[in-house]
């Protein structure tokens, strides 16, 4: 039944039940059915037929066959940060995309089911962030507009809104990709099961992106993978163990506590496991306690996926054990008025399969900031390797923060597709990397950048009719340029887009300048980086930026990158932290109101206007014009006195 019919029938049915006496109901029903045409409106039970359901119940009629085969350009498995960004990137680049998510909500580890902060390059050695831009930033900004209250269940739906407004994406929630259907070394289809509708989907696609973390589809496709820790000697990793082993970092159960304003007793449930504070390493901080404890964690040196449910039950015991210690040991009187108001039932995973691509990213690549010709993403969270044993190894620090980074490191495209399955790509914690590299790159915003990269790559694969490896070999420049145009940032890789007409302009100037320079708007850098300025900043508002060409040029697109302060984190946090480096608000630097004009035969014509801009990348599309100049009239930010821009591009089509 179509959804609109369901609602229609529900209303009609409810009215019928109210208005028609029960005694007449059956007569009415049967006579109506026999006299009137097959009109669902007149049936008291809507469009259902009790007889049919009775026959199905007795086996006289077979249950509905809901098996469906669907065909797309790109299938993305996993609806976490990486998968969402992959799907959006592919969709915006013209692909028909299906996004398969095995949970009822989007967001993965950041969803209301798990509530991990969507961290990225939050803090480099100098204490400053170098925040990610592109699709993940757009999502985080979307959240700032729709969820100022920092509610995790609302965050789930902010993401639902973000994904479902993309017309090229077909979202399938509660759906597991269970098996790859192969044709040689190519995935032909993914066999999927949607639990809530008892529906089998056979999803055919040209390209498959596995962003599911555990990577079941990829594993069943026969894609090569590793688990555990590499020996130090294999990749020359100074923080890796001498001998390789099977250890995988654990999953965590988070909890939240609320001040109830009155003493709150706590009685631990029977599955509680006593917390031995005396034996615990001092790094297991119990204060603050309001947001739970990331170190309530358990990994495995064997089959971490197969052991997941056992791990979960044990972790819940530990989580309640720590809370019991806080509440009932007598050592933490400050917890007296606090009570648990949320405990996760879905531990957040850190590590399992790592698939093998044409390049395995390793610790020395990160620490030496290796420059890759095929760099498409970046990371910068510290090497943060959780201790073997997790909470069952209390004497060790809960994690080894081996080293921070001076500047973000690059992630190459060759680590994002399978070495042996030709149309399979990855983004997230399952990319081609060592355990040590994962200890940094597993962070969600980093995964999101990988997602945007592979989503864009699939579109280019289809466009050029090539597979990912060939794309990397022959079209990497196209991929990088598209990513940069779409507001991704690749460290030390400025944009050099020859189709950008703005680069041909003879003159660019601004009505006022307090820092930077207007001509930096075409230098290919979309942020200030390594102490080099790449912006123009007005002195007060309103302000204008004008670009002049000697000759008429055909323009139909103007694209602007404005400031959102990448030195301040904007992700949803459980503590709603507000300070110089975290904000719960809309970045005050974000450009709010502007219009754009083109000069045609000496006359200025407005071709676009925004009163409540919400994105860093601002795009105006209009019918092509022959123009000699464009002008940006910048009116208002979300609070900053000046407006700051980083890039101005123009395209013919």
């Amino acid at each position: 039944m179509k959804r609109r019919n369901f609602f229609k029938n529900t209303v009609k049915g409810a009215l019928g039940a109210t208005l028609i006496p029960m005694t007449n109901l059956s007569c009415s029903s049967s006579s109506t059915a026999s006299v009137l045409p097959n009109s669902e409106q007149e049936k008291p039970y809507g469009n259902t037929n009790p007889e049919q359901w009775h026959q199905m119940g007795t086996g006289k009629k077979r249950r509905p066959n809901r098996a469906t085969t669907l065909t797309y350009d790109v299938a993305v498995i996993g609806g976490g940060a990486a998968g969402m960004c992959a799907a959006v990137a592919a969709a915006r680049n013209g692909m028909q995309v299906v996004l398969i998510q095995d949970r009822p909500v989007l967001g993965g580890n950041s969803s209301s089911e798990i509530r991990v902060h969507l961290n990225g390059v939050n803090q480099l050695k100098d204490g400053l962030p170098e925040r990610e831009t592109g699709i993940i930033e757009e999502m985080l900004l979307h959240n700032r507009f729709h969820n100022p209250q920092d509610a995790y269940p609302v965050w789930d739906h902010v993401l639902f809104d973000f994904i479902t407004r993309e017309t090229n994406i077909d979202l399938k929630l509660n759906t597991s990709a269970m098996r790859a259907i192969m044709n040689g070394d190519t995935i032909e289809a993914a066999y999927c099961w949607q639990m809530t509708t008892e529906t089998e989907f056979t999803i055919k696609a040209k390209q498959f992106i596995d962003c599911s973390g555990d990577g079941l589809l990829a594993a069943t496709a026969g894609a090569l993978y590793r688990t555990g820790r590499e020996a130090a000697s294999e990749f020359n990793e100074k923080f890796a163990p001498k001998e390789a082993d099977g250890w995988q970092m654990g999953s965590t159960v988070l909890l939240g506590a609320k001040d109830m304003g009155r003493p709150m007793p706590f009685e631990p449930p029977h599955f509680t496991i006593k917390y031995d504070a005396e034996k615990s390493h001092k790094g297991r901080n119990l204060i603050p306690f309001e947001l739970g404890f990331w170190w309530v964690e358990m990994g495995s040196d064997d089959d971490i996926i197969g052991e997941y449910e056992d791990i979960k039950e044990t972790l819940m015991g530990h989580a309640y054990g720590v809370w019991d210690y806080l509440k009932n040991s007598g050592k933490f009187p400050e917890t007296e008025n606090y009570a648990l108001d949320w405990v996760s039932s879905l531990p957040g995973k850190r590590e399992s399969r790592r698939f093998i691509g044409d390049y395995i990213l390793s610790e020395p690549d990160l620490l030496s900031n290796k420059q890759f010709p095929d760099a498409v993403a970046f990371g910068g969270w510290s090497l943060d390797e959780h201790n073997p044993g997790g909470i069952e190894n209390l004497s060790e620090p809960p994690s080894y923060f081996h080293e921070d980074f001076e500047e973000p490191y690059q992630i190459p495209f060759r680590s994002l597709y399978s070495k042996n399955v030709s149309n399979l790509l990855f983004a997230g914690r399952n990319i081609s990397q060592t355990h040590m590299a994962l200890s940094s790159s597993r962070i969600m915003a980093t995964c999101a950048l990988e997602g945007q990269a592979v989503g864009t790559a699939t579109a280019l694969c289809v466009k050029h009719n090539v597979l990912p490896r060939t794309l990397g070999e022959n079209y990497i420049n196209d991929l990088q340029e598209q990513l940069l145009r779409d507001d991704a940032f690749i460290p030390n890789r400025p944009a050099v887009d020859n189709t950008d007409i703005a680069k041909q302009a003879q003159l660019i100037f601004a009505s006022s300048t307090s820092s930077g320079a207007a001509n930096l708007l075409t230098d290919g850098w979309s942020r200030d980086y390594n102490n080099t300025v790449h912006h123009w900043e007005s002195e007060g508002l309103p302000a204008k930026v004008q670009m002049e060409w000697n000759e008429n040029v055909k323009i139909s697109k103007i694209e602007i990158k404005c400031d959102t302060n990448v030195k301040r984190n904007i992700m949803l946090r459980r503590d709603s932290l507000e300070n110089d480096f975290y904000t719960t608000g809309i970045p005050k630097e974000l450009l709010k109101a502007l219009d754009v004009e083109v000069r045609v035969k000496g006359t200025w014509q407005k071709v676009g206007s925004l009163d409540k801009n919400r994105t860093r990348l601002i795009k105006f599309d209009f019918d092509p014009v022959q123009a000699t100049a464009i002008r940006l009239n910048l009116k208002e930010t979300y609070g900053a006195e000046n407006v700051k821009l980083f890039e101005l591009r123009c395209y013919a089509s």
Partner: protein
Amino acid sequence: MLARPINIVCHAMLLSVLVLWYHDFKAVQKTKTHAVNIIHKGISLTQPVNTVLVEVKDAKNHALSYYMDVESVTCGDSQCRVDRVRMYWDDLGRFNRIELPHGVHLEKAQGLQFSTADYLKLEMILKDENSGLKDFYKHELVSTVGGEGVDALSGATVFIEKSAYVEGAVWTCYTLWHWAHNDINDIIRIITGDDYSNLALEQLLEQEGYQKFAIEQLSRRHVYNEGLLNAIIEVNQVRPELLRTSLAYLETLPKQDFDTAIKRFYQGLPECNHLEFFKSMIQSEQVYPADFFSVVKIKVSDLSFQEIHLLLEVFRSKIEIDSVAMEQLVQLLHQNDFLKAREVYYFLKTQDLTENQGKVLLAFYEANKTRL
């Protein structure tokens, strides 16, 4: 109180920047106390602190410096010991240094004393008018959530840029910075200014480092005379960065004085300031004299594209163009700089031109119609 150097070897390098003992100024210098009310962000955002600012005067009864005795920590987590320190500003309200009483050392968390490096860093922080501490409110300074090294699953907690504070003494840095930089800076400038006569202020225009202050104070007093205008014009020629302060001064003049002064001011203006001057014309609340451009004899051909762009905006919005300037603009159509010529062409198209000027305009159109 006698000065006593503390750890003189270790701190020798600091002597020029951070004095660690009190001088007994009262014994040798004249002082004057001022009761002042200031908002200290670390104390209250609404309730001013009533405190005493001491002005140290020179032999001419002019301000030499100022100081105030304050508490080193006014807020925070009670982790630091609170000391009484003396903050110094120069006569123009710029923070200068702090001094500590005999035997007192600033203290960090866990009772550790400030090291030499800590004092140097503190001095650098306090002298930075745009420190990261500036925009912080006290409740934002220290997060209640976790330490700095925490896991991806809970999120790293950083409360402020590391360069903006001495580790273990963030409250001290915050408190002292907000003592050093608040309304007190403007209050000091006014007190110092009040010590000077008009003539003395005019004389300050010749004194390096005091010109901006002098113009501000003269502006506050609405002083105007021929000699003063000449002095301001002269100082602008060597200190182009004083343009805005000077224009703000001219804006305060009565219409009659303004009409004369603004023309003379433009005539003495360095070329690098033409652009800013045209911007100020557009934004000015004064009505510019109609004969402004004919008197100043503007040479349009020497102007850059942006200057011409703004000049045309002036003609559109502030002053009606005269025939001399119009002819100069027409001549620009013959220039090789096409962008300038085209900009002028668009303007001239909207103007009443002579027959000859109209012909030039038409010729320009015919020659360039594909790129207009």
